[in-house]
């Protein structure tokens, strides 16, 4: 059975895929069928974030219940393997987020519609979270 932090990392990955997948399914088809200022995306973005956070909270509660014994064990909070996974995951996620922020900045500098900058930041942040989670999970599996 995976530990508490490994379980919550899986939850983040799953929540990201669900929330981002739903958002892209709702917004991307509109890009090809209507002008940018008529695309409905702001409320979808908020709903997507709410779905992500709700999925995350539910999974953290589930993981906490499943790992009660581990969490009760004194001194386990500082498990070094968790730290290694966190460090690697955050480094890769950070690179992805920096790339998304840079692209969004360029879109604003060259005066593209704010739709593109906002969506680059949103999708970039979600993908950065997903990359971070996947690297952590690979580290837990001993593949990185």
């Amino acid at each position, binding site marked *: *059975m*995976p*530990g508490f932090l*490994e379980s919550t990392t899986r939850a983040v990955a799953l929540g990201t895929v669900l929330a981002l997948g739903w958002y892209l399914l709702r917004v991307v088809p509109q890009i090809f069928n209507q002008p940018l200022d008529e695309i409905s995306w702001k409320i979808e973005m908020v709903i997507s974030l709410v779905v992500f956070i709700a999925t995350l909270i539910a999974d953290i509660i589930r993981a906490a219940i499943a790992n009660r014994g*581990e969490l009760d*064990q004194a*001194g*386990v909070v*500082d*498990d*070094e*393997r*968790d730290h*290694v996974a966190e460090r690697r995951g955050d480094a890769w996620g950070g690179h992805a987020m920096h790339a998304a922020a840079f692209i969004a900045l360029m879109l604003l500098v060259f005066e593209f519609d704010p739709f593109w900058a906002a969506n680059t930041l949103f999708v970039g942040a979600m993908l950065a979270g997903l990359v971070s989670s996947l690297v952590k999970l690979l580290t*837990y*599996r*001993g*593949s*990185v």
Partner: protein
Amino acid sequence: MAKSTPITNEIRTLRFHAGEMTQAELARQIGVTRQTIIAIEQGKYSPSLEVAFKIARVFKVGLDAVFQYPEA
């Protein structure tokens, strides 16, 4: 497929000789999770020097009795 570290270990054998000490008990004495002990035993994770010394100390043996780094 999970990549294994070239470092091998005798933790399973040492636990057996320590009265079938459980992974959970070893984890508790060292201050890591049972999953980390499983990963170390299976060669999927190389522990820090500090944890390696702690493991050796639990079994009252030298570091090289717990971990080996075979010639390539």
